[in-house]
Structure formats: structure tokens, C-alpha cells
């Protein structure tokens, strides 16, 4: 186990790198850095292109009426998507209220209690499969499970469909983020006589919270633009509706209806709707981030 000998030969002093070798190394360094920057630009390009095109196509149709009035019949001036914006907000609030607690609780179970247990493995497998279920299938499932029982479309059914879509993403992110919390931190709390449940809530979850919030935001942003699961559940509505057990408008549905219509005026409104949808998702994600970063201490890791 002597470090002095390799194959019983004394170690030679390391050779001084030649000038060609140095050049070769720095060239390779520049090449790989360049490729990494190029890849970053390639990732950003589609996002920038989408945003630019949406602004180009949709911005001209945006006015005050768009945000304050429900749609008008074809040919009539001054219609908007106010009811769809509010409707999307209601459906997403419902979905978040149901999906986030269930998703986080399941993730906590997987990471802190269900390690190696049959139930834990079953939940993990279910979450992964659920993540791959096409959204239209989710819509049909909730249609038969909720809408058919209620005998009518409703905001609640839309919220349930989106909530089910949020759960697997949140569960798996929560589990993965909790797994990154060092075991030593948990032991510190247990060693102070803090009960297990309190350790999970105040130490593990709190330490992992930035990642878990990111996971919730990802799930939220993903379902915010979903159309298919809402087609058979929330259904859409041309008028104001604030009731949870009535059909309700949603931005993606409204965009869908307008985009496949034969009218130019509606096409323009569909572009404007898409722009507003993207903008609202970006604003809500940013707000949550700012809110979550408040009160973070200096020097924390």
C-alpha cells in the first residue's frame, strides 16, 4: 500500500507539459465551452421564437375589452376573454388546492416513510405511469368518473382532471428533493429529541422547499396550458360563470375554439389569448419565486 511505488518502480517526476500540449489543452477547453454556449442558445431559441411570434401576432388584438369583456358573437365589436381568464384562474386554483397537498404528501411518504416498502414501490410505479398517461385520456377518465355521475360539465371536474395531472410530477420531485437533504441534518433534529413527524415538517421539508416549490411550479405551468383534459370536463362557456358546478370557460379552450373557427377576427383573438396565457403563466411563476425567496438568509446553502 505504498504510494511511492507503482509496479515496484519508483515514481518519475511528472513531465513538464510541452508547448504543443498546452495549446492543445486550451483549444479543447475553448471548443467545449463554445459547444456548451451554443447548446444553451439552441435551448433558448425556441422559447424566444415562440414569444416573439405570439407578440407579433397577438399584441395588436389586445385592448382593455379583451381583459374586461366576455366573447361577443362573430362580427360584433369589442369582445374579450375576461371570463376565460377568470375561468382558468378558478380551475387552476382548484387543481392546485387538490393536487399540491396530495402530491407533496405522497412524496413525503415515499422519501421519509416508504423506503423499500411494498406500498412505497407501488406509489412510485403508479406515479411514473400516471405521468405518461396522455392528457386526453385523463379527460375521458374524469368525464366518466365525475361528469357522468354529476350529469353535467363543471369547473370542479376540470379542476380534478388537472389536479390528477399535477400529482405525479409533484410527488416525484418532492421525493427527489427530500432525498437530497443530507441524512446528517435529519439526525441533528432527531438527536435533539424532536419527534419524527416534526423533523419531517420543520427540517426535511423546509430544507428541500426551494426544489419542491420549483416542482409545483413546473406542474402548474404544465397543466395551465392543457386543453384536452378540459374539453370533456370544464367544457367551456361563452358567458361569465363563477360556480364550481357549472361549465366554465378556460383560456386554452377558448383559444382552441377560436383557432379552429373560420373567422379571421377570431383567429386574431386566439393569438392574443395565447399571448396572455403565456404571460400569465410567466407572471405567476415569477411571483411565486419572489415570494418563496423572501426571508432566505445570507450564506445558506
Amino acid at each position, binding site marked *: 500500500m505504498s504510494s511511492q511505488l507503482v509496479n515496484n518502480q519508483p515514481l518519475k517526476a511528472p513531465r513538464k507539459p510541452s508547448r504543443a500540449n498546452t495549446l492543445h489543452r486550451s483549444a479543447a477547453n475553448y471548443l467545449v465551452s463554445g459547444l456548451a454556449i451554443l447548446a444553451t442558445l439552441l435551448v433558448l431559441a425556441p422559447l424566444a421564437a415562440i414569444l416573439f411570434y405570439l407578440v407579433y401576432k397577438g399584441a395588436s388584438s389586445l385592448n382593455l375589452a379583451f381583459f374586461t369583456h366576455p366573447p361577443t358573437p362573430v362580427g360584433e365589436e369589442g369582445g374579450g376573454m375576461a371570463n376565460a381568464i377568470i375561468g382558468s384562474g378558478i380551475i387552476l386554483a382548484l387543481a392546485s388546492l387538490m393536487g399540491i397537498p396530495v402530491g407533496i404528501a405522497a412524496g413525503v411518504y415515499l422519501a421519509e416513510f416508504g*423506503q*423499500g416498502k411494498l406500498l412505497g414501490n407501488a406509489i412510485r410505479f403508479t406515479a411514473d405511469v400516471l405521468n405518461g398517461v396522455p392528457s386526453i385520456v385523463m379527460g375521458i377518465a374524469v368525464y366518466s368518473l365525475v361528469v357522468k355521475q354529476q350529469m353535467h360539465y363543471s369547473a370542479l371536474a376540470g379542476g380534478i382532471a388537472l389536479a390528477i395531472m399535477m400529482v405525479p410530477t409533484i410527488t416525484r420531485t418532492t421525493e427527489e428533493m427530500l432525498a437530497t437533504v*443530507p441524512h*446528517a*441534518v435529519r*439526525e*441533528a*433534529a*432527531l*438527536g*435533539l*429529541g*424532536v*419527534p419524527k413527524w*416534526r*423533523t419531517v415538517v*420543520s*427540517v426535511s421539508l*423546509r*430544507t428541500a*422547499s426551494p426544489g419542491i416549490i420549483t416542482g409545483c411550479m413546473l406542474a402548474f405551468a404544465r397543466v395551465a396550458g392543457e386543453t384536452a383534459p378540459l374539453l370533456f370536463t370544464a367544457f367551456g362557456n361563452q358567458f361569465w360563470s363563477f360556480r364550481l358546478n357549472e361549465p366554465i370557460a378556460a383560456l386554452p379552450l377558448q383559444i382552441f375554439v377560436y383557432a379552429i373557427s373560420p373567422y379571421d377576427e377570431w383567429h386574431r383573438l386566439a393569438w392574443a389569448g395565447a399571448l396572455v396565457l403565456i404571460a400569465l403563466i410567466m407572471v405567476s411563476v415569477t411571483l411565486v419565486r419572489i415570494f418563496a425567496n423572501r426571508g*432566505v*438568509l*445570507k*450564506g*445558506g*446553502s
Partner: protein
Amino acid sequence: MGVGIQVEDLNAWYGSTHTLQDINLHIPANHATALIGPSGCGKSTFVRCLNRMHETNPIARATGIVKMGEIDIYRDASPVEIRRRVGMVFQRPNPFPTMSIYDNVVSGLKLNGFRNRRILDETVERSLKQAALWEEVKDDLKKKSGASLSGGQQQRMCIARALAVDPEVLLMDEPASALDPVSTSKIEDLIFQLKSQYTIVIVTHNMQQAARVAENTGFFLNGKLVEFDSTHKIFTNPHDKRTEDYITGRFG
């Protein structure tokens, strides 16, 4: 004040590995007791059995009697109660990264639902002074995260955190092994001062450290307690050949 610990026929397992075999030992109150031995000999498992941290590992179990004063810790009390009375300092500093220095120190109180501001303030000052950290951090108590301190400061903060719940016994599992010599000597001074009020059990790989801080020393080898005696006796005239071989550096 500290209490003595009486250990009788303690056995511990990780899965099928028999890590501790028939340990019998009396740890006197208000003294420092050092545990030495090569890596993997069971010292850490032993201290983890004294505050029932051993059983937090799902594949671990332990049998035998550990008496803290009059209480049999495996029969008369819950693990949570025992851990409040037996504080622990770990090998690597493990501050709560999301908490300020202040919250780190009183976390044992706050996470158990204690909210009296005046008493919390007093506890923070008392514990940080006991851990010789007060002067260095008193201006940033609530501004800085506990994780922003240097390694040595973090470890002293972890000692303050253990002292804040007012334990009777303090277990230290190689508390200075990740620290530089200056921080190490601060921690040793600290142990010297603390042992008048607490019963201290310290695991160490550093035999000079054991000789400096502890009145009694136990030598562990392959899961067995080979020898337990006064530190002076262990280091000058050990009873067992294996102890002598270890402290003279012939193996381990």
C-alpha cells in the same frame, strides 16, 4: 447536573452484523470518558445506543440494559424523551441550513413547541457563551444562516445547540475530526469546562486528545470493549496486550 450511565450486556446489530458484543461499563457522572479504537470497532454504534439514535436505522437493533441514573432508557422512556436528556454532537458539523444562527441554537426548544421569547433569548446567549462562540456571532444572530459560519464555528454552534436543551449527558462522536488544530483546541477547552456540569462521552481517533480531556478511557476492538480504566492507566500501563499494541501504534 450530569448523571452516571450503567451499561449491562449491551449487544447491537446492523442487519446480521453483530457490531457490539456484551458491553458492560459504568460511565461516571460529571466526568469526561473517552472511547478509542480503530475504525469500525463499534465506538460510534456504542454512543448511538446511549441516546437510542441507533434504532433510527431501520435495519438496526439493540438488546441489553442502559441505565441513566435510575432510568432504564430502553424500557422506562421513549426515544424522544431520552434524546432530550442526552445531547449529541456529530462527527461533521450539521447545522440546519435554512435556519439562522439563533434558530439553530434554540431549534431543540422551538421544534418542541417552546415559544417564550425572553427565555429563548437567554438560552441563546447562555449556550453560545458555554460553547465559546458568543463573541464571534452575537451581531449576526438572526441575519446569518448557521451554514455560513466556518467549520469550527459550526461545530461550536452544534455544541451550543446540544447544550440549549439542557441535557444531562453529552455524547460527542469525533467532534473535532473534521476541524483544524486551532478549532480542535477550542473544542477541547470547551470539553474541559463542560465536564463539571455534564457527563461527557467522547469518541476520538486522536489518542492525545483522549489523554488531554478524559479521566477514563475505554478501548474498543471488533465490537468488544477490551479494556476500560483511568486514562492514565490505559496510556501508561495497560492491562491488555491489544490495548498496548494499539496505543503504541503497532496496529490500527
